[in-house]
């Protein structure tokens, strides 16, 4: 197989200057960590503010008066009722009731130049998502990828203090809302959201202004760069799913514990119930038929339990498999996510992870593992 050269984000040279270790990720060369190391970056995000380059993710505009109704045929969310400037977590469902990707949807202010809906999808699913939307709703609205924009995430308890120095208006945003702000001379779409469990922002910036904005943010003493390694441990502590690991086309949103993201109006009895792929299966699961559930696990010993580890009961019978796991820097214990049969998915229930021939006790634990600190 021919090797495809890795794509670079607009911040590539900055990463190299900062001494990042670059790794291939979803077809891009991405910084996995900087010289301070993953744990320091993770803790800095929890204590102050961390800057992540997430430009590999897919930014897409949907344009047209029918865009919201069209998107509702692919996601079981209330998009039609999404207010201007409001953001919502969503997922594309498959015909068998699984998940094709998860994404963020925001309705930008009218005439802001970000379409009628502005979407951020996973890097590894970008091409598939674009095809999916083009095929199924391309006749109802324009599906417009935005490769000309970079995406930065500024996350942590000091993120608002820092970003307010560039534009005081961002302080008015609350969790899961967004708007257009001029930052370091560039017109940016800023949402108060993220993937760390902390307060923070995601900033869509024109690619040719991305380095200047990143440098302007890094110039503040509170801000340090953080790589994909810390992003992964932060999101895992926050109990947030990683597509392709914790969720995928064989997990229903109910099994994944994501039913909260489906608004009443799209559920049975709601005014716009169903009419999305896999609705029959998902409604059946909503009614109580989901055979298994995604749970959080905390290790009672200090041995890390990683993706792929088998979870067994006290008699050694297989219950499920770990989908993400690590020794969590802030929680300072092994944490993991796994799918367990519903009769084992009970808080404080003890199960065992098989690691190198040993059975390590773990306790089913409500998530997040580390409390969310969103600005609501």
């Amino acid at each position, binding site marked *: 197989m021919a090797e495809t050269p890795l794509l670079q984000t607009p911040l590539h040279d900055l990463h190299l200057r900062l001494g990042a270790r670059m790794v291939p990720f979803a077809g891009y060369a991405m910084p*996995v*960590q900087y010289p301070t*190391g993953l*744990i320091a970056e993770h803790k800095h995000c929890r204590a102050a503010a961390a800057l992540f380059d997430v430009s590999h993710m897919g930014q897409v505009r949907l344009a047209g008066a029918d865009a919201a109704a069209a998107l509702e045929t692919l996601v079981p969310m209330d998009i039609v009722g999404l207010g201007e400037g409001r953001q919502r977590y969503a997922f594309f469902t498959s015909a068998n009731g699984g998940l094709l990707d998860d994404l963020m949807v925001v309705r930008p202010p009218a005439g802001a130049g970000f379409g009628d809906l502005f979407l951020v999808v996973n890097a590894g699913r970008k091409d598939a998502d674009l095809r999916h939307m083009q095929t199924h709703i391309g006749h109802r609205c324009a599906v417009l990828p935005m490769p000309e924009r970079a995406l930065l995430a500024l996350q942590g308890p000091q993120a608002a203090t820092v970003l307010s120095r560039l534009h005081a208006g961002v302080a008015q945003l609350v969790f899961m809302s967004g708007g257009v702000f001029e930052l370091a001379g560039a017109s940016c779409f800023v949402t108060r959201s993220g993937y760390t469990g902390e307060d923070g922002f995601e900033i869509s910036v024109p690619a040719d202004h991305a380095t200047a904005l990143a440098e302007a943010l890094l110039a503040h003493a509170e801000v340090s760069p953080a790589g994909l390694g810390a992003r992964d441990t932060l999101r895992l502590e926050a109990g947030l799913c990683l597509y392709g690991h914790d969720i995928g086309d064989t997990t229903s949103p109910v099994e994944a514990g994501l039913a909260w993201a489906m608004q009443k109006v799209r559920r049975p009895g709601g005014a716009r119930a169903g009419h999305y792929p896999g609705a029959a299966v998902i409604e059946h699961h909503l009614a109580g038929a989901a055979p298994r559930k995604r749970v959080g696990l905390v290790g009672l010993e200090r*041995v*890390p339990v*990683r993706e792929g580890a088998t979870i067994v009961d006290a008699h050694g019978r297989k219950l499920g498999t770990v989908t993400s796991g*690590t*020794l969590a820097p802030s929680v300072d214990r092994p944490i993991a996510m796994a799918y367990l049969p519903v009769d084992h998915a009970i808080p404080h229930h003890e199960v065992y992870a098989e690691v*190198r021939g040993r059975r390590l006790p773990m306790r089913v634990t409500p998530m997040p593992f580390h409390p969310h600190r969103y600005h609501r």
Partner: protein
Amino acid sequence: MTTMYTPDHEWINIEDHEAAVVGITHHAQDALGDVVFVELPEVGRSYKQGEVAGVVESVKAAADIYMPVGGEIVEVNEALRADPSLANSDPLGQGWFFTVRVADMAEFDQLMDPPAYDALLKTI
């Protein structure tokens, strides 16, 4: 030469061949990142050359520790067990893993000397 290296990035110092010291190289700890857990062998147990005698884990990954030479484990570094980050901060010193009574010095002589190991690092 008293310190030799393996292709798996372990080092072994043979100053005392009744208790040769084994650890991971600077390159190994750098590639792993922040070390958060080590599994050390049982004192008194004997291993063949190349057998897995321990595990070192960072936040991101786990790696096996292979026996650079066959022999019996004399002592393990309890300070490293208590503070695995010693493998990052001082991999050639306080971050040692265990000591081994070398069964066959010929196995030691077959390992990579410092210039050979440096040459290997240049290919990575």
